[in-house]
């Protein structure tokens, strides 16, 4: 039986590798961009799973009683998962979106100038 989050981590690593496979072996630029997105997703999943604690809830204090005194807060602290990875992943997602957007813009223009989406056609600058 899984003691922790092997499933999440395994899935995340799987996603990363799948993304990388797409990135390294597909020739279509769009698929490469897609591969990056998949890998990004894997990373994000991994980050979130890093903050996951078994049996705990989201880090939102929604019970008024919890706010009454400090001791209660300490109790609450033992009730929630780590909020930091969630904050990080938020940022990471946005960054991923930004990069993807820019990549897509590049792909649009590459298609415009090269008339193809084959990544191998864009290796004229070399050596």
């Amino acid at each position, binding site marked *: 039986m899984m003691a922790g989050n092997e499933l999440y981590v395994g899935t995340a690593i799987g996603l990363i590798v799948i993304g990388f496979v797409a990135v390294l072996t597909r020739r279509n630029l769009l698929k490469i961009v897609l591969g990056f997105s998949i890998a990004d997703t894997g990373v994000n999943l991994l980050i979130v799973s890093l903050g996951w604690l078994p049996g705990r809830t989201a*880090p939102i204090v929604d019970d008024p009683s919890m706010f009454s005194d400090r001791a209660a807060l300490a109790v609450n602290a033992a009730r929630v998962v780590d909020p930091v990875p969630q904050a990080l992943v938020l940022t990471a997602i946005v960054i991923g979106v930004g990069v993807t957007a820019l990549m897509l813009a590049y792909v649009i223009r590459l298609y415009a100038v090269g008339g193809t989406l084959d990544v191998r056609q864009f290796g004229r600058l070399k050596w």
Partner: protein
Amino acid sequence: MKQIVAVVALATLAILLWQLAPIAMPSGLGVVAQHYAEHGVQDNRGANLVTSVVVNYRGFDTLGEVTVLFLSVSGAAFVLRRRTGLEVHEPRRASEIVRTGARLLFAPIVLFGTYIFVHGHLTPGGGFQGGAVVASGVLLLLLANKDHPLPHGFLSWTESLSGLGFVAAGLAGLWAGGSFLANRGILPLGTWNQLFSAGVIPVIYTFVGLKVGSELATLLDVMMHAADEEVHQ
């Protein structure tokens, strides 16, 4: 050949990463997280600890995040500033039902998005999520009608001013609270679990929401019209 090497390499990489799985196993809160969990609510009077982390403790990251988005949108627009070489495929015009439905749905979607970012400090969600929802409304409009007139001036102003507002809020913290993006000393922290609480956090999140919404809308617009002859400014 290259592909085989790539697959073998990636398999090895997967094994390497899997070695890290034990580290990833749950192990309780770290020192910083412990502090956030214990003192987060008191420090910021925000119910949503994640929001506290995002906007206050790690607010500087968020500013950067907003900047990233802003930058990538500007960048996409910059990359797409040339419009030569692309054929324009005039898509099939959507049906009247779709177009009308989209227009009808637009307002509720924006409203929902606004709700999400305004309540970012209380409930799950926040500026980014809300902004994304708002932008999805725009996306709907554009999908329904590629040439749907967007208020470019409004978007641009919103984009700029909300960004400026974020920075201004941060500077206000510097002026009043002693450090950039400080939450204390500017607005009263208010009472926990109320809309107007948690100091400048909702303000900032509102700015973020507006900014993200307008940015993503602009991005969609830019991409949508990448092949158009007229030159956007």
